[in-house]
C-alpha cells in the first residue's frame, strides 16, 4: 500500500466531459466517475430528474500519489468550480498496490 490523496469532485453533468479533459491534461493517473447524481448546495436543489440532464450532477473520484500532480489538479479544478459551482474534497488514503 502506498499513501495517496483521494480527490472527490461534484460538478454538473454538462461539464463532465470538460472535467475529464482537464484531468487528462493535468496528468491525473486515472479517475472514476459516477453519473446521474443529484444534490443541493448554494445554487439550490438539483433533483437529477430532468430528461435534459441540466439538473444532474456527476461525481469524480481521483486517487493520486504524486503531491505535485495533486496540487495541479486541485488548482485546475478550483478555477473551474469558481465559475460553475460544485465542490471538491481531498482526503488521505492508502492505495493498494497490485
Amino acid at each position, binding site marked *: 500500500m502506498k499513501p495517496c490523496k483521494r480527490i472527490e469532485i461534484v460538478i454538473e453533468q454538462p461539464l463532465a466531459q470538460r472535467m475529464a479533459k482537464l484531468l487528462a491534461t493535468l496528468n491525473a493517473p486515472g479517475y472514476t466517475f459516477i453519473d*446521474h447524481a443529484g444534490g443541493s448546495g448554494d*445554487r439550490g436543489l438539483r433533483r437529477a*430528474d430532468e*430528461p435534459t*440532464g*441540466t439538473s444532474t450532477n456527476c461525481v469524480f473520484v481521483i486517487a493520486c500519489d504524486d503531491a505535485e500532480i495533486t496540487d495541479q489538479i486541485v488548482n485546475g479544478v478550483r478555477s473551474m468550480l469558481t*465559475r460553475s*459551482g460544485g465542490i471538491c474534497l481531498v482526503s488521505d488514503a492508502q492505495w493498494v498496490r497490485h
Partner: protein
Amino acid sequence: MDALFLSNITSPPLLFFMLGAVATLVRSDLEIPEQVAKFLSLYLLFAIGFKGGVALAESPLDFEVAKGLLTALLMASLVPVYVFYLLRRKMSTADAAATAATYGSISAVTFVTCTSYLDANGVAWSGYLVAAMALMESPAIIIGLLLYRIYQSKEERDQPELMAPGELIRESFLNGSVFLIMGSLIIGWISGPVGKAQISPLVNDLFIGVLCLFLLDMGIVAMRRLQDMRSAERGLSSLGMVSWGIALPLLNAAIAVGLAVLLDLPEGDAVLLIVLCASASYIAVPAAMRLALPEANPSVYLALSLAVTFPFNLLVGIPLYHQAVNWLA
C-alpha cells in the same frame, strides 16, 4: 374559440401533462425514470424529424418553403435581441443573455404537441416546418452570447473565455437534439415513402401515445420547477417570473402572427410558425449555456421556459394562436 380551446384541453396529451402537474402538487411519488424520459424525448425528435423529411420528399421545395424558412430564421435572430434589451435592467447581464437565447430558440415538444393538435383538428401543415424548427434551435445561442460579450461588465471581461468561438458554434449546432432532428429529417428525405412504410408503426402509430407519457413526465418536472421557484434567489420575484414567462411568448407570438398574415401563410403553417416563435428552449439552450455561460443562473432562464412558458403554450397558447390566425385570416 371555446370549442377549439376545449378540443385541446380534452386531448390525452394535455390531460396527461396536467396529471403530471397534479402528481407533483399533491406530492405523489409518481416519476418516469430519468433515462427513459430522455429516451422518450429522443424518440419524439426522431419521429418528428423523420416525418418531416418524408413530407419534404413528397412535396418539392418551392418559394413558399423558402419564405417560411427565411421568416423562421429572421425571428430566431430578432427575438433574442429585443428580449435581451427588455430584460437587461431587470436581471444580471448573464441572465438576460441566457434568457434571450432561450426565447429565441424553440421547444420541440411544444411544436410536436401542436402538430398533434392540428392533426386532431384536421388542419394540414407542411413538412418543411420541421426543418424550420431545426434551423431555429441554434442561432439564438450565438446571438445571446454576442450580446453578453458586448454588455458584460469590466470585471467579467477579465475572466478567460470558456469556449473558443468555433467550439461554441459547433456546440450550438451539434447539440444532440438539434443533430437528431436534422439527421432524421435528412434520412426521412432520402428514404422517402419506402423508408416510411418500414418504420411507420413506430414513428406514426405510437406517436401520440408516447407524447402522452412524455408530457406526463414534463408535467411533473415543470411543476417541481414552479415550486422550487419560490425558494430560489434571483433578480426577479416569483410573480415577476410568472409575468415574464407569459408576457414573452405573447409578445413573440403577436409579432409572428403579424408576419404570418403579411406573408399569407396557410393556416396550419402559420400556427406552427407562431408556436415556434412563442416557445422557448429548455433542452439545447440550457445545455449550451451551462458550458458557455456558467455565470448565468439556470433558476432564471430554465425556470422561465420550463415552468412557465412551456405549460402556458401547451394549455393556452396553442389554441389561442390558432384562434388568432383564424380571426385575422
